[in-house]
């Protein structure tokens, strides 16, 4: 009985204690209220310098932002990201192009044009890891209550998920083409063959247009100065000025930018003496050579199955054609190169024979498998249970077939190869023999 009343008593006590507390909180609600009227009120968070170079950095992680004009496309942020939500594609201007991607606000000369810089914020987990390695401090988190400082909207909430893929780089097509990115553009649009402009710049420097000789300007060590000098130099050369006139023009441009100093005198002198254009001497020749030289087709060498052999053969081929040797001499030099490397096999012989007499040979391998070899069915080899052995057998089979060998030869060759490799068991030999029976 006493227990019963005691329970009622303590129950009442705690009930009253709870009510008292609630009442107390009711009276002091203004002081303790935790809820903010969110869109109208925002948390006050002090700004602070977080200890790395970016003075303006705001530690609140609301959204990533990229100052794309400062980005050099170094891909450091991509490598740091654990979820791969940054995509960067950049176009590197070909050597000698006068396209200038500009400099960053730190004064770094950019090497390429960042054609695409997407951050998929649906995947981003706001870990902030990408911001630290950036050499230009151009990728950072913005937003939050201090967004007034950054003039960028608050939470970046969007009505459609698609809008959460932020595209920071937006170069015009002309810019991309000017940077030599015609190929890139074509690929992006899903056009399989590179458009005409893509083919042109490639062909051009090889055929006629003489290259501008940048050597004297490259002697300038300061990056900023060099890029300025190059610009002026290019313009002067294009305008058809003589060497000494060009030197004067470059000097003038640098003086205007306040970058000229007396130690550049020697450079100017060398510009004054330099040949502005490297005459496109060997280039046109080279072009002719690279075309099927003397009627030889390098593609035929692709028939070589062994990678090493193929590489050596191709190298020798190129060297020989560049020297302008005739077909026979080319074949011979390939042969000597391969013999030196101890790679000269029957297969190579067959291929070389084809190479030498392109008239008949290329027809042969195309026709041969259709007439003679189809009698053999490579699928039979699938009966070989060991994976390694099967691969080897098939490889030899194909090579032999391509070389236009007779079925009997193919079978013996496959067998021999396996034997050499120590893989020929009676069981496998039977399968290989059955190649012919099957036929």
């Amino acid at each position, binding site marked *: 009985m006493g227990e019963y009343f005691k*329970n009622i008593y*303590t*129950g009442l*006590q*705690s*009930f009253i*204690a*709870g009510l008292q*507390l*609630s009442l107390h909180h009711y009276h002091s609600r203004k002081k*303790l209220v*935790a809820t903010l009227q969110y869109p109208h009120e925002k*948390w006050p*968070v*002090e700004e*602070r310098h*977080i*200890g*790395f170079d970016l003075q303006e950095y*705001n*530690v*609140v*992680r609301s959204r990533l932002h990229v100052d794309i004009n400062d980005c050099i496309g170094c891909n450091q942020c991509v490598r*740091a990201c*654990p979820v791969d939500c940054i995509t960067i594609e950049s176009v590197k201007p070909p050597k000698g192009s006068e396209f200038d991607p500009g400099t960053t606000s730190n004064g770094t000369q950019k090497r390429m044009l960042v054609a695409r810089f997407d951050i998929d914020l649906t995947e981003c*987990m*706001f*870990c*902030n*890891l990408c911001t*630290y390695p950036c050499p230009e401090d151009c990728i950072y*988190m913005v937003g*939050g209550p201090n967004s007034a400082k950054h003039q960028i909207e608050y939470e970046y909430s969007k009505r459609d998920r698609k809008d959460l893929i932020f595209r920071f780089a937006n170069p015009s097509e002309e810019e991309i083409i000017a940077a030599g990115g015609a190929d890139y553009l074509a690929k992006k649009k899903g056009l399989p063959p590179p458009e005409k402009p893509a083919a042109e710049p490639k062909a051009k420097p090889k055929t006629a247009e003489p290259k501008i000789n940048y050597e004297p300007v490259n002697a300038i060590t300061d990056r900023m100065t060099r890029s300025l000098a190059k610009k002026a130099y290019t313009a002067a050369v294009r305008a058809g000025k003589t060497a000494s006139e060009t030197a004067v023009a470059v000097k003038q441009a640098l003086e205007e930018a306040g970058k000229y100093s007396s130690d550049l005198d020697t450079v100017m002198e060398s510009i004054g003496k330099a040949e502005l254009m490297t005459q496109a001497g060997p280039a046109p020749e080279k072009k002719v050579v690279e075309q099927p030289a003397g009627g030889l087709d390098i593609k035929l060498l692709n028939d070589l199955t062994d990678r090493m052999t193929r590489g050596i053969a191709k190298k020798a081929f190129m060297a020989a054609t560049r020297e302008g040797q005739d077909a026979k001499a080319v074949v011979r030099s390939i042969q000597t190169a391969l013999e030196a490397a101890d790679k000269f096999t029957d297969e190579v012989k067959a291929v070389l024979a084809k190479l030498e007499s392109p008239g008949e040979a290329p027809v042969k391998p195309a026709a041969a498998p259709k007439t003679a070899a189809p009698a053999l069915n490579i699928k039979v080899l699938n009966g070989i249970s060991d994976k390694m052995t099967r691969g080897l057998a098939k490889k030899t089979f194909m090579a032999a077939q391509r070389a236009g060998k007779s079925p009997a030869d193919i079978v013996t060759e496959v067998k021999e190869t396996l034997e050499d490799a120590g893989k020929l068991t009676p069981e496998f030999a039977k399968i290989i023999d059955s190649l012919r029976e099957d036929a």
Partner: protein
Amino acid sequence: MAEQLKDFSLLHSDEMILNMGPQHPSTHGVLRLKIHTDGEIVSRIEPIIGYLHRCFEKHCEFLTYEQIVPFTDRTDYLAAMNMNDAYALAVEKLLEIEIPERVQYIRVIMAELQRIASHLVAVGTFGLDVGGITPFTWTIRDRERILDLFEYVCGARLLYNYIWVGGVSHDLPEKFIRRTLEFLDYFEPQIEEYNQILTYNKIFIERTADVGTLTPEVAINYGCTGPVLRGSGVKWDLRKTEPYAVYDKFDFDIAVGDGRMGTVGDTWDRYFVRIIEMKESVKILRQALAQIPDGDVHAAVPKKVRIKEGSVYSRYESARGEVGFYIIAGGKDKPMRVKMRSPAFCNLSVLSEIAEGWMISDVIAILGSLDIVLGEIDR
């Protein structure tokens, strides 16, 4: 007072299987409990997990050591700082690098703040489970202040990626120490309020005292750690028994259950251990904030973590118990294998043992007192 049924042969009624979860407010996440009941009495519980599995351990094999840190955040999302810290500790052990004193202190401060924040959620939601809504709003309100402090430090409120291998991502801001002290001054009296409204509330005691008693033997056999183990009266706290970082410099006690309201190791004890632990954390925080030395927090951060060969198991007392990281390094900048020992997983495994013979409504109280986080159980 609730009573545990010991002899099932009296009833002989049909067994019924009741599904609780995965969408159930009292399961604290996507946990499904398959409860075998006899009438309203529980005879067996099968916890079914895996709804939140994200292949954390497999992911780690494809990420560099630094990149794993944000993933550890997402295991125990209520104590993300603790997880960062536990992981960093393991890798540093493998790297054998010396961590600057200031970093150690910052980590202790963050870990203790996080422990308070995590226990606040545990206490609040536990109150919610047994029917008290007000304490929940209060604890969440105070937790917000801790999250503000975290935001002030590193810009994030829940998943921080703050503690790095070899250091922390940024130094403490100028006013951080003052603001944390202000918070502690505000917070300590709040604990008394929780006690008044929840801990010593008669109804609460009736629901929790003597319910779901976990004996020390069973707790140890099941590998329970953290407040669940200490609630059973076992003095085991890695901060004291195997001090890491600078914990040996602070004066604090291990909170243990003493059966004040019923038997040792009952649900109330497990709950109350967390209340005491919050007080102890405040104690540690005050000492750490007073002693923190100056220094460079980036001094020991390696440029690129690359570990030759070797493996390490490192244990860490998080808000939920012993977090272990077993890392095998394969000579690359990525680990070959990372295994995480999840405290909540072991704590959950004991549920069937202690809930047997209690009513379904008691199961909710018992589960609440285990304070599980599914993000960590499933990983």
